[in-house]
């Protein structure tokens, strides 16, 4: 009887992680969930790579409601997780609060800047990656009309749109770019019906390639492109596999690399706080080419995009960052 109870208590203790210093990384995913085929899934892939490369395990948590964010971070920090990585800009307030409570622990946040001595903030130069897919869109378009569908109308999404428009104009100055935002509230991240309607509206106006940076709303755009036999461009993760044949490419945001590097840095003892900006030069953003879209990308398109990529890295092409002054030069 006593032995049984002891065993039960041990099991509970193990489950709760009582008294176990983990010293392993922890990832707190944003509300989309770790299999969102996009942003969060990229983080998951990064930490999985860390696991297979080092053999270390990791802790993870999928946030379901806003109230859970702070709890999740505190719980991970209490258990001794190091580093604690928050995925997504909405995690910033919770992470900031908990990071102050645990000054000797390392924290990292993706897509947002938190200025604390124990926090590493990783942001991406989305405009550079968007520039490249904008070029591809303009080159693939037969009507010289390309489109953009954004999620919620915030500066981050305008940054995608502005980089995309610059790239399209760079590849073909005569191209017309149509820009639509789904809405002005967070509901705009999850309205595939509106996304599909925006896409259909653009198709009706002659657009034949659409880049969607709109979270779950993008699913509707990709589906509409497939139904209409037009092209669409994915975002964050490689989404080419969603609809092979109508997905021209995807604008990659290497959240996986960021998560992997952050965890590795703590393991190797060369972790640094501060803001890390990942652009084309660091392979933090890019465009996806795989077996699902190889038939849509000609050698010429590939060569031109790679040349532009080299020019951006070398500083010969300056891609304007919308968030620098909240304007787009086009």
């Amino acid at each position: 009887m006593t032995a049984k109870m002891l065993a039960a208590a041990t099991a509970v203790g193990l489950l709760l992680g009582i008294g176990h210093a983990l010293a392993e990384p922890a990832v707190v995913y944003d509300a989309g969930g770790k299999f969102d085929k996009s942003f969060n899934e990229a983080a998951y892939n990064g930490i999985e790579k860390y696991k297979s490369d080092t053999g270390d395990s990791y802790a993870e948590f999928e946030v379901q409601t806003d109230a859970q964010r702070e709890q999740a971070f505190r719980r991970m920090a209490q258990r001794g997780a190091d580093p604690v990585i928050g995925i997504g800009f909405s995690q910033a307030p919770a992470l900031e609060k908990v990071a102050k409570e645990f000054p000797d622990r390392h924290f990292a946040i993706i897509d947002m800047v938190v200025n604390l001595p124990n926090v590493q903030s990783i942001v991406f130069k989305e405009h550079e990656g968007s520039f490249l897919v904008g070029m591809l869109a303009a080159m693939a378009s037969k009507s010289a009309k390309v489109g953009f569908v954004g999620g919620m109308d915030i500066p981050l999404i305008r940054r995608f749109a502005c980089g995309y428009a610059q790239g399209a104009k760079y590849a073909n100055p005569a191209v017309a770019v149509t820009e639509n935002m789904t809405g002005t509230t967070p509901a705009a991240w999850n309205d595939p019906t509106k996304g599909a309607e925006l896409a259909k509206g653009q198709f009706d106006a002659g657009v034949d390639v659409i880049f969607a940076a709109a979270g779950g709303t993008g699913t509707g755009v990709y589906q509409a492109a497939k139904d209409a036999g037009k092209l669409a461009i994915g975002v964050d993760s490689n989404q080419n596999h969603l609809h092979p044949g109508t997905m021209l490419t995807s604008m990659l945001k290497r959240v996986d690399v960021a998560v992997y590097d952050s965890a590795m840095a703590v393991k190797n003892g060369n972790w640094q706080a501060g803001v890390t900006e990942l652009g084309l030069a660091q392979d933090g953003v890019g465009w996806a080419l795989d077996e699902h879209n190889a038939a849509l990308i000609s050698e010429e398109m590939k060569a031109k995009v790679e040349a532009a990529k080299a020019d951006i890295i070398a500083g010969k092409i300056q891609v304007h960052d919308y968030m620098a002054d909240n304007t787009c030069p086009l």
Partner: protein
Amino acid sequence: MDDLFYLGISTLAATLRLATPLILCAMAGLLSERAGVIDIGLEGKMLAGAFAAAVTAALTGSPYLALLAGLTIAAALSLLHGLASITYRGDQVVSGVAINIIAMGLTVVLGNAWFGRGGNTPDLNPEQRFMPLQLPGAADLREVPLIGPFYADVVSGHSLLTYLALLLVPLIWFLLYRTRFGLRLRAVGEAPAVVDTAGISVLRLRYSAVILAGLLCGLAGTFLAIAQNAAFQREMTAGRGFIALAAMIFGKWRPWPAFFACLLFGFLDAVAIRLQGAVIPGIGPVPVPLIQALPYILTVILLAGFIGKALAPKALGRPYVKER
């Protein structure tokens, strides 16, 4: 000029697509509220119906089974609403809100547990969905000036469920105003005591109305998940149930006016989508938030200035207590 004509055609086609879930939900709300039961749970029932339809379509591959599942789940939630607010005389608004919250949470939790995709269901193939139908002669008539494109792109090219929604409006009008059941249903929303005195069961009438409303919501959800889209996504109804409720009040609880209110909202939504980024000479680009607020601004103006007072059924929101 030609461009403008095709823009108009495309806007009208989008109007019908966008109005379909609104029409179905507005008719649902109308049936329930004419019987005296407030139905603020349209959104939740539609969401649950969408989820059930998407899951069933993904698992069985049949859109018809999916439709059946959508109808069943939405009707089941309606029964719950009926149980709480008709049998146990609870507050109808509270029960409706509860249904919305249950649907919002349960769909995501179940979706996550079954498919592990953040609450989404797997993508569907065309044969698992209600795809747009080409009406006979649409392709041949396209070349006829004016009428041809209108027939081919506005009248033809919608899913079966859209045509069903359009057909349901006159049917519901007939049901309400030309049948005995309809007369009794309207009476039970105005003066349930009178209906009771005549020896007709108030409870049975209200339950029938509420279940019919659930079926219509299930139809709307099925349309959203497997006709307009190809998967369920969390909170994909995005407030359409509430807009339908507004359209129903706008139409003063009558089928035809409510139907036209839904068309108006759908039209404004379609116009808003096409006006985004358009440049008005002398003013510059149209601001996005203004365009998106347009349907609501117009509702307030029309309701306040032109339509006049919207009178609800007299017994709306009051549970019926039999006098002893």
